[in-house]
């Protein structure tokens, strides 16, 4: 017993020594960090999913931001100051995203947060963002992000709120009225699912089956067998993760000839590679970045998108997908606002500048935020795509 007590004691002391020393010294360092004056770079936090179900989305996002950061810094920075982006990986986990934002806000003193990659992860940051009053620009497409309005939170993708009605209308136009829905239970999938059910009547389509799967599931033949039994005109899938390719393959595997339509979350090269033949004929609505000619050649949006595609392809050897585009836009929104801030940039003044964004041409559309609308995109930015010959073409 004596030894045990001594050991308890020794451990406690050792532990406390560590924490105390660390605590004291870290206090010292935070003092010095703010003391260097205006030569300090602008510090922006970015929370992306570099692992987990959305790893394939977060990775191009990080690449796009790194590329743009380098370009701006090489050109002398903003207002004579460099821009430093501090990346955090949330592992597609809302709880990790929340821990990451605490770190960015309290350890790194960032003036803005870009992120997160996913809808659930984006929403997880909200309490901390509000408490700190730091602006957040999300790269996720859930409607809830800007529909549950927050004065600090902005969004660059086309939210489900505009994509779902657009998609349903496109189905109706093509005579596909008996719709079977399959969605994942993640934040984005559920957001889309709920909107599909809500908007179906207005759009004049009928939901004949409604199945779900969990992020990480590897076989959906059972759900699709049920869908097959309902004989729909079309299967409408709503998710953004890697499971999309499995759904496409399973449909083929079951010998179903029904067309598959998806969400902007499926505008990824990995989906085409993963689904292989099964991806051919797959259709989805998204912004014009995948085929910038849709903007009309010579328009400002076309020029911005063309340049981004060229820069990204040069830097990384592959064309950007829509997620790289969302990240480009998020970084553009923040840096553009930084240029317009008068006087010293604080989180509050930066937030006001972001809200004042009007007519900013990004690759996903032209952004015009207002005190009521923190998404600033409309149905006008959307087109319908089809996968043809392992690439995206416009589906007229």
């Amino acid at each position, binding site marked *: 017993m004596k030894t045990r007590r001594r050991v308890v004691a020794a451990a406690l002391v050792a532990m406390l020594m560590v924490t105390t020393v660390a605590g004291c010294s870290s206090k010292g360092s935070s003092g010095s960090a703010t003391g260097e004056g205006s030569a300090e770079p602008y510090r922006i936090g970015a929370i992306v999913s570099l692992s987990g179900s959305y790893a394939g989305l977060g*990775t191009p996002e990080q690449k796009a931001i790194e590329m743009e950061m380098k370009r701006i810094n090489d050109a002398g920075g903003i207002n004579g100051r460099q821009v430093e982006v501090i990346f955090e990986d949330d592992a597609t986990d809302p709880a990790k995203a929340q821990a990451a934002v605490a770190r960015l806000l309290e350890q790194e003193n960032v003036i803005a947060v870009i992120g997160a990659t996913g809808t659930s992860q984006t929403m997880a940051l909200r309490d901390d963002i509000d408490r700190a009053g730091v602006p957040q620009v999300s790269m996720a497409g859930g409607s809830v992000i800007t529909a549950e309005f927050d004065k600090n939170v902005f969004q660059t993708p086309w939210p489900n709120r505009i994509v779902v009605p657009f998609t349903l209308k496109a189905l109706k136009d093509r005579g596909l009225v008996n719709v079977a829905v399959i969605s994942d239970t993640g934040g984005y999938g559920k957001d889309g699912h709920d909107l599909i059910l809500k908007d179906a009547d207005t759009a004049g389509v009928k939901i004949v089956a409604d199945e779900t799967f969990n992020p990480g599931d590897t076989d959906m033949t059972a759900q699709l067998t049920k869908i097959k039994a309902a004989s729909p005109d079309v299967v409408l899938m709503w998710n953004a993760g890697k499971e999309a390719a499995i759904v496409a393959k399973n449909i083929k595997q079951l010998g179903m000839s029904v067309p598959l339509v998806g969400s902007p979350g499926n505008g990824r090269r990995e989906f085409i590679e993963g689904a292989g033949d099964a991806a051919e004929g797959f259709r989805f609505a998204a912004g014009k970045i995948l085929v910038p000619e849709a903007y009309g050649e010579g328009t400002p949006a076309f020029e911005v998108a063309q340049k981004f595609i060229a820069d990204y392809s040069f830097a990384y050897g592959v064309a950007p997908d829509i997620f790289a585009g969302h990240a480009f836009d998020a970084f553009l929104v923040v840096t553009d606002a930084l240029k317009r801030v008068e006087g010293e940039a604080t989180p509050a003044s930066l937030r006001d500048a972001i809200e004042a964004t009007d007519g900013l041409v990004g690759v996903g559309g032209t952004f015009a935020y207002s005190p009521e609308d923190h998404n600033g995109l409309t149905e006008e930015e959307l087109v319908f795509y089809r996968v043809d010959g392992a690439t995206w073409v416009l589906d007229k």
Partner: protein
Amino acid sequence: MSSSELLQFLISGLQNGAVYALVGLGFTLVYASTGIINFAQGEFFMLGGMLAVAGVRMGLPLPLSILAAVLLSAGVGVAMERFALRPRRDSGALVLIIITIGASMVLKSLARHIFGPNEMALPAFTPGPPVLLLGAAIDRQVLWIWGLTIVAVVGLTLLYTKTKLGRAMRASSLSHDAARLMGIDTAGVVMISFGLAAALGALGGAAVAPLTQTAFDVGARAGLKGFAAAILGGLGNPIAAVVGGLVLGVLESLSVAFISSTYKDAISLVLLLAVLFLRPQGLLGKSGREKV
């Protein structure tokens, strides 16, 4: 529900069930020779798929890639046993189990560093339209999965009953000390068990990758299902692991058919717990052979 739909659900269940069985066999092999649960088993499933994809991307023909992936994974399994577990084989089972957990963390994370975070696709072994059976469709890859599972089971049974090595394995699973006294190289038996378990997991991972794609993080889920299969059937018996896997797969698929796709994992787990509570030794296990 028409009979062809029911058949389709069964096929879907047996497809997943066969994969669970291959992973579950690995758990059972290691358990039989060491009395521990190898938490890294799921990572060999991941390695099998990822290494096969890597081989194809390096330009190797598909069969060679798969063979290389299976052999390399077996090598990793043997190395893990030799360097991380054998030095501590006289410690308690839990110490060894935690070492395997550590190894699984390292394998998964290294795979992310080496192969990247994206999902990857492996070409189908024999491409072509699905085979039709009484109105239900069976993908050709599913036939491969079933075939490989049967080969694995038959191979293991032959190994156990017809070879000296197999008898040594069975002897040391009953009692290490007695086996050692009889001149059996128990250390060798354990090493071979780990190699075989890793190879079976890798085979499962490579066989299913054309259907589901693969990624650095597929191991945990595969491990969980395989573990459940092995427990459901009864630990330590290869046939039981296969039965456990197939039952689990079919249960999940029928839950989707008759109850709800959302609750399929929960339903199969509730049934699993019920089986455990009513028959702690598993469906086919004999009681009184507790190791821990």
